[in-house]
């Protein structure tokens, strides 16, 4: 029905319009209660659904957080156990090495001390004999000189002087000997001092190691007790490890790309330059496969050396088998590196061949003899040989990256879920308020009948209060 038809129900369009408006308001007024219920039901349903979804996401976020916490603590515990185990092994190694030497050290010290004691005893000064002649000299001196006392005294004097000389010589010799003994004691003292210094250093080293073990044990206890501090440290450490390992991996990817460039071209000589697998050249895929095999061999080598622990099966192999695996992977790597060096050389040869052909096709047959060509050839070969071995070490950042990735993904998941729960909650509340707003907007054109209704109710009740039912209807 067109607008003209609607306005032509009476001869006057304005009157027709007024009639339609009145009719419309009447319809809306009589349908008001049902319409409000419908709006409330719809908005309530949407709001409740979103709130339930928000609760569900929050619950999932909590569970993910708990799971992340468990994983983080387990990883931290394992890492700490490894560190403590290694520290104990180092302490054990130090103790074994030093204590194995202890009997020898003890014997050396005892011998040195015994020798010093003996030398000390030998070096004791022997006191000179008491003067036995003194009384005899006094008795003789009381005799009269005529009785021959003077001659006796003279003889005695001579004898005393002679004895004194001899005694002095003996004393000097004894003193010299004592001094020699005392001088011989010096190196022994130094030996003892040196031995004690060494002992002190070793004891200090052990003490510092034990201090480290104590620190690690404290951290381990914190992890075992599931303390928040430990969790925070582990989480932060995991994030740092993630970014550092990602950076190193990027560098490794750059190395792999250079490696790929070195061998992709000569690979066309082996597998043909025109065959494709899907949309990729077979030669490029072959080059990529070689690089991937090298990285895989590097991983196995690192696993066999027990530097990384990505494959527990390899770590748990018997030592004999593990050592055999080390040699096998190393040999394969060596072969692949040699092949790459050969391919790098081939690349240079092909490049020169292509340059010569291009020069011929351009009409310039004369080629400049480059005397420094061997440098680039050697450099390419060297890179071709070294890069496979350099790629072996990718295993270490890769392991760290994989382990830290779990935590980072968990943290990102928690963040996302938290944001999603918030958005759902906001939308849930928004729908509830939207329902209220829609009810208000519905009532807006009905202000005249609503006012009349309110007035009628007030007149009937003799009060100006708003009906309870109306309040209930518009209250969100």
């Amino acid at each position, binding site marked *: 029905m067109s607008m003209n038809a609607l306005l032509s129900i009476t001869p006057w369009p304005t009157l027709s319009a007024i009639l339609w408006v009145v009719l419309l308001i009447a319809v809306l007024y009589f349908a008001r209660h049902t319409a409000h219920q419908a709006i409330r039901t719809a908005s309530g349903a949407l709001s409740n659904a979103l709130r339930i979804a928000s609760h569900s996401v929050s619950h999932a976020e909590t569970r993910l957080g708990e799971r992340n916490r468990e994983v983080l603590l387990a990883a931290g515990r394992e890492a700490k156990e490894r560190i403590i185990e290694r520290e104990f092994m180092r302490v054990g190694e130090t103790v074994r090495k030093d204590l194995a030497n202890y009997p020898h050290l003890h014997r050396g010290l005892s011998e040195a001390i015994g020798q010093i004691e003996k030398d000390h005893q030998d070096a004791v000064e022997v006191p000179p004999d008491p003067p036995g002649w003194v009384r005899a000299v006094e008795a003789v001196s009381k005799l009269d000189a005529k009785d021959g006392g003077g001659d006796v005294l003279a003889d005695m004097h001579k004898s005393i002087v002679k004895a004194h000389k001899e005694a002095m010589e003996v004393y000097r010799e004894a003193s010299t000997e004592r001094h020699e003994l005392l001088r011989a004691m010096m190196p022994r003292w130094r030996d003892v001092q040196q031995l004690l210094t060494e002992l002190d250093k070793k004891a200090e080293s052990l003490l510092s190691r034990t201090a480290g073990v104590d620190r690690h044990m404290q951290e381990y206890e914190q992890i075992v007790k599931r303390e928040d501090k430990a969790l925070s440290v582990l989480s932060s450490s995991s994030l740092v490890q993630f970014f550092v390992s990602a950076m190193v991996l990027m560098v490794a990817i750059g190395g792999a790309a250079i490696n790929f460039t070195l061998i992709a071209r000569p690979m*066309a000589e082996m597998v043909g330059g*025109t*065959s*494709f697998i899907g949309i990729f050249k077979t030669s490029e895929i072959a080059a990529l496969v070689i690089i991937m095999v090298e990285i895989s061999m590097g991983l196995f080598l690192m696993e066999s050396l027990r530097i990384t622990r990505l494959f527990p099966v390899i770590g748990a192999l018997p030592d004999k088998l593990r050592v055999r695996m080390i040699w096998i992977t190393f040999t394969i790597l060596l072969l692949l590196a040699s092949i790459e060096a050969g391919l790098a050389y081939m690349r240079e040869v092909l490049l020169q061949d*292509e340059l010569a052909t291009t020069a011929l096709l*351009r*009409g310039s047959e004369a080629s400049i003899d480059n005397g420094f060509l061997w440098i680039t050839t050697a450099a390419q070969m060297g890179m071709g040989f070294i890069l496979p071995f350099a790629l072996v070490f990718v295993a270490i950042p890769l392991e760290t990256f994989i382990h830290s990735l779990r935590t980072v993904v968990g943290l990102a998941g928690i963040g996302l879920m938290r944001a999603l729960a918030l958005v759902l909650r906001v939308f849930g509340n928004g729908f509830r308020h939207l329902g209220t707003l829609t009810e208000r907007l519905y009532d807006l054109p009905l202000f005249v009948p609503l006012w009349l209704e309110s007035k009628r109710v007030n007149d009937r009740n003799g009060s100006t209060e708003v009906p309870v039912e109306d309040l209930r209807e518009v209250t969100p």
Partner: protein
Amino acid sequence: MKRAAILACILLVACTQSAHVARNTGVYLLLDTSGTYRGELRKAEDVILYTLSRLQPADSFAVARIDTGSFSEKDIIAKTTFDERPSVANAQKRVFALKVKDFIARENSAQYTDITGGLLQAVEFLNEKGTGHKTILIFSDLEQDLDKGYVRNFEVPFAGFDVVALNVVKLRQDNYDPRQYLARLEQWKGQVEKAGGHWRVVNDLDRLDGML
């Protein structure tokens, strides 16, 4: 086990498909050796060498002359399908270049110009090679001059072919009436495009980048 089997099947299908989809290029170059065009052959050598430098292993290339009756294998001066190994392909290119140089040095003028026969021979050759992209280069003034008895008023199947006319020089009479030149170009264009081919004209031989 089941997953491995599915993966193997996918890989096999991919490999099979890759074997069927030809990605190489086939180029057939027709050289006009008629008296009016004989002097332009030196330029043709440059075009051939340029084409050789652009072609890759497994591509096919043939150079043939346009003479009185061009629908013949005898008119092919040099032809080759480059080896898949780049080093061998380079050696083939060098040999090809020498053959072309030798031909241009000793070639005599042809009495008549059978362009349609040459085009048909090119189509036959490239279809037989089964290359992914097929390009026919015509180094000619496009003035066809048939001997008595040669029937060439039929449609050549150009579907899937790029036909590039190179160095279409203006003849003396074209200068008197340029409409003849334009009509000649239009006639060949119509003939090629009517048969499903794609027609182009490249007269600036210093800008051959988009030729192939």
